[in-house]
């Protein structure tokens, strides 16, 4: 599982930090490193580009997992360079950005767009497989999530728009329902298709969601 990110265009980043002359850079050693959006080499490249644009980089680091609370210690260890900066530019997913902001009084800006929670699916692709709807129904759908992978999130069956197994609405994607059909067929469970579906309970997705941790 990876939090999938992409780099924002440099022009957008420059716009975000245009009032800051001195910048402290933070990368992330986990997903953003794997995806080459905010690992060590991308941080160094960002440093070079910002210096070319006449910014001063007061320091940089790659936090092992920026979304972890240990980020507080990482920030504490680098107080001097961070204090010298006008802002912090974070090259991690939005969780990392927000974690940094929790523990710093400096303005914090994102250098990446956070796209989705992905897994390696089709060879060479990261695919979105779950939107955390809060009420998992894939037991009814051969462990394939129509909420996420059908363009219309259809729970009651295919729309009839598939062409050659591809989604009519988004031809770059396989039709989720054809996949569900094929897999149920292989499992000898085509009867599942006739089961009724209830409307989704979107109150389970009422934002923001939080879970109280109970001590072990």
């Amino acid at each position, binding site marked *: 599982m990876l939090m999938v990110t992409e780099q924002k265009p440099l022009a957008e980043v420059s716009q975000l930090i245009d009032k800051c002359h001195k910048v402290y850079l933070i990368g992330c050693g986990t997903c953003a490193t794997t995806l080459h959006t905010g690992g060590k080499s991308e941080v160094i490249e960002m440093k070079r580009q910002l210096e070319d644009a006449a910014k001063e980089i007061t320091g940089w680091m790659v936090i092992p997992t920026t979304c972890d609370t240990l980020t507080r210690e990482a920030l504490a260890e680098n107080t001097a360079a961070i204090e010298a900066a006008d802002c912090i530019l974070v090259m991690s997913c939005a969780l990392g950005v927000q974690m940094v902001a929790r523990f710093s009084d400096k303005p914090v800006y994102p250098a990446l767009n956070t796209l989705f929670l992905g897994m390696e699916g089709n060879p060479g692709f990261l695919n979105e497989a779950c939107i955390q709807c809060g009420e998992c129904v894939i037991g009814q759908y051969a462990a394939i999530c129509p909420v996420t992978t059908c*363009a*219309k*999130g*259809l*729970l*009651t*069956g*295919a*729309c*009839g*728009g*598939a*062409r*050659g*197994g591809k989604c*009519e*609405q*988004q031809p770059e994607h396989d*039709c989720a*329902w*054809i996949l569900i*059909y*094929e897999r149920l*067929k292989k499992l000898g469970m*085509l009867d599942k*298709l*006739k089961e*009724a*579906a209830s*409307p*989704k309970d*979107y109150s389970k997705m009422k934002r923001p969601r939080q879970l109280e941790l109970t001590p072990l």
Partner: protein
Amino acid sequence: MSLQSSLESGKFVITAEVAPLKGTDTTEIIEVAELLQGRITAANVTDQQSSVMRLGSLVVSYLLKEKGLEPVFQMTCRDRNRIALQSDLLSASVLGIKNVLALTGDVASLGDHPQAKPVFDLDSVLLLQVIRRLNEGYDMAGNELKGKPSFFPGAVVNPGADTEAALELQIIKMEKKVAAGARFIQTQAIYDADSFAKFMKRVEGFKVPVLAGVIPLKSAGMARFMNKNVAGILVPEHLIKKMNEAENKTETGIQIAADLMKELKDICQGIHIMAIGWEKKVPQILDAAGL
């Protein structure tokens, strides 16, 4: 005779699609309504067709009704959540609209406001269940209604699936729609009566009147475009050739549609004409088909 009485008494019916335009000018719609009145049983009013923002289907359905043309109010789930859908249904009932065609709708990214937030709180089958519930006097949450509607709900099916999986899925979905209360079915455009007849054999047990969809061809290019881009539509090569060679494309397009309608007439209980810009030619097409 109303759409419901016609279908329930086994009569053969003609419906046609009317698409609201972008803006407040309703002249064209009214002209079409006047032209079609008396020639067809009911007119479907599309709901933000192809996810392009236009005048609403509820208001246009009402305008048609006022002009004496019975409307089929098309309702998609793309732009409204369950609260808005139910409320619009109640409004439709108060305006005297009986027929509702329940659709899921296209995704917003295909239309002219691709940045819009898609809703899809419900889908076609779930919407049919909601309509049935409203007819029974209750909303989706189980609350009792003060005054209940009496809708005649319908649904769509796309018989032209290109793979075994797609076809089976369509048939299962159609069964679900009927079970959820669909009392009539309108289909995607058909161009081959024989394969449609096979489809009809498969679904005859569902005991629901089916109206075969017909889209008159305007050119060979249009046919090729639909073959390439519209799922379930397959215009056979010989028809494309005919359109290509035609001297008068309009006449040929009308003739092809009329011939098709003559063939389809014996296979199902009605024809649904989607004229896509040719609404005013519908009477001509019906004349040519002898309907």
